[in-house]
């Protein structure tokens, strides 16, 4: 059974790992391969700050809320492990700031210790009058992708640097199942008018005195368009850019200034911070995540594709729940093809 995962960001690699973990023991012939034209540190995941935090409003597909929670619980269960930091995982606490009172988010009981900010805490942020404090998790993209790559390599999963031009080419090479994790570029394999780039630009700085995330919100401007400061395992990510439809992968100066001024206003000590680098990436924005099976017919072959793309700015936040869902769908495919004699080990 040849499974080709297209895409090596967090979605591609975690899905590959999930499928291998679930089915390798019950399907000796399982051969999983990862095809991608970009690997870490050049994927969209590498640009992400890596904070587990869904959007504030409930998703149109309630399953997404469930996948977010599944991901948090899974990551939390790994926190007691000595290897957590090697995975890119660590607890982190911080502030969400607003200019007026807002309802609590649907994920308030998923994160730890969620509460409203006290007046003295709000004094620290003169431009804001309301907010939340909670403990969440950091999952740093680059470190996590390196870790996933190691786990997959241990399991004998092979990686191939190639730009896939069509599903057909992969089918003709003998793939039985394709997992489509191509993120913002999914449209190149199959047109999807619902998918758009949500361009982001971030500045990474050295400011080790900052231990909390600070995320501001401006409901009028929309998500990610207001300054945010998110500590990573070593460096701090500064951001606040979200441009729908912008395919420019180069950093630009006006965006740099927007980020820098906004974040320095929030946290004046940043003026002393050393800039380590600056990156742009495209959040794969879609009204809903596309997670579904599709059958492709090319000539006489009948190949299954499982789409898993369109995770917007919450890829790391939702990834494991989606990977498990894909594994479920994959299991159904195996059942339909009478390949499973015993039920799968973990689901």
């Amino acid at each position, binding site marked *: 059974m040849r499974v080709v995962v297209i895409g090596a960001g967090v979605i591609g690699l975690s899905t590959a790992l999930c499928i291998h973990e679930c089915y390798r023991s019950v399907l000796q012939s399982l051969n999983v391969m990862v095809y991608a034209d970009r690997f870490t540190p050049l994927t969209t995941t590498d640009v992400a700050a890596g904070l587990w935090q869904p959007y504030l409003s409930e998703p149109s597909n309630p399953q997404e809320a469930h996948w977010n929670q599944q991901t948090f619980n899974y990551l939390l269960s790994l926190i007691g492990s000595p290897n957590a930091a090697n995975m890119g995982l660590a607890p982190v606490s911080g502030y969400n700031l607003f200019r007026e009172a807002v309802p609590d988010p649907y994920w308030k009981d998923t994160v730890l210790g969620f509460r409203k*900010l006290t007046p003295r805490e709000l004094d620290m942020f003169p431009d804001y009058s309301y907010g939340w404090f909670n403990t969440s998790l950091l999952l740093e993209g680059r470190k996590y992708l390196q870790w996933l790559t190691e786990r997959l390599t241990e399991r004998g999963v092979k990686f191939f640097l190639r730009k896939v031009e069509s599903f057909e080419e992969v089918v003709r090479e003998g793939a039985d199942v394709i997992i489509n994790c191509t993120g913002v570029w999914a449209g190149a394999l199959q047109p999807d008018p619902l998918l758009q780039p949500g361009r982001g630009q971030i500045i990474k700085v050295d*400011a080790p005195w900052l231990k909390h995330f600070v995320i501001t919100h401006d409901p009028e401007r929309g998500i990610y368009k207001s300054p945010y400061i998110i500590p990573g395992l*070593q460096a701090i990510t500064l951001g606040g850019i979200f441009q729908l439809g912008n395919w420019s992968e180069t950093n630009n100066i006006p965006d740099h200034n927007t980020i820098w001024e906004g974040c320095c206003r929030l946290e004046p000590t940043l003026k002393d911070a050393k800039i380590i680098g600056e990156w742009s990436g495209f959040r794969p924005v879609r009204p809903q995540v596309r997670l579904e099976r599709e059958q492709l017919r090319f000539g006489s072959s009948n190949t299954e594709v499982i789409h898993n793309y369109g995770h917007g700015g919450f890829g790391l936040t939702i990834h494991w729940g989606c990977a498990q869902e894909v594994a479920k769908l994959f299991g159904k495919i195996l059942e339909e093809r009478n390949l499973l004699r015993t039920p799968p080990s973990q689901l």
Partner: protein
Amino acid sequence: MDTVRIAVVGAGVMGLSTAVCISKMVPGCSITVISDKFTPETTSDVAAGMLIPPTYPDTPIQKQKQWFKETFDHLFAIVNSAEAEDAGVILVSGWQIFRSIPTEEVPYWADVVLGFRKMTKDELKKFPQHVFGHAFTTLKCEGPTYLPWLQKRLKGSGGLILTRRIEDLWELHPSFDIVVNCSGLGSRQLAGDSQIFPVRGQVLKVQAPWVKHFIRDSSGLTYIYPGVSNVTLGGTRQKGDWNLSPDAEISKEILSRCCALEPSLHGAYDLREKVGLRPSRPGVRLEKELLAQGSRRLPVVHHYGHGSGGIAMHWGTALEATRLVNECVQVLRTPAPKSKL
């Protein structure tokens, strides 16, 4: 009006902060800080500098709360300014955890720190050996950065700093009019105070930048305090132990206790051992004393004995020491009545 010449003995957090306080609040005086040890070799440089105060048995709770609040408010203003990094003050959140439910579930300082609340059941799952906890946000004030920052401010306001080991407070007479004694453990000799004794603390300063929260076992024996450029792992409380050399067995044991609370610390690197002797006393000595020898008089303000609460209480006690210095200055400036002495 003659300049009143003030000598501050000791250049740890007490000496330097008192000197700065005096320079701001007592007009018409010159200040000289005299010490044999300066940053980074003082006890204050070893301390993690967490604003989690101890309880002094001999001091009324209201007074301790006042000192802690004054210190917290002072450092909170710094942390919210652009100077925070230069001063070595940061905001840090975390947990204080208990193996059994404490009799006092809410400590006296709960409303001084930020966002104080009890830990939720889900939060406690991270610590299977513990059944109760506090979650809050507080400040960390790091000696190796804060002390140089204080020295700079002192020099900026005309204060002098001298390296000299004082064996007897009378050495300062008659060059100085008032002595402020911030010599910590040195007061055993300088002030003949047998109530002050060391409580030895050994710590490891390690690299583990992914640790963003403090974790403190309520006994005060085991703690993990993330700072600007390292994480302090502790510790020990060895009463009466004057040994300043690190003990390798103790270091292993500290690391093991801390890894039990935070397993990711197995990956900590660049471990450095440090030892500090907490200047411990049943209560902080904050009082005036007029030393007399023949016809010589030397007003002294004692300001020492903070044990494990030095950084946490320093500004509040420095303010009080400054008030006492002011009283001494007033006495010096009041013409003496021409009657018996």
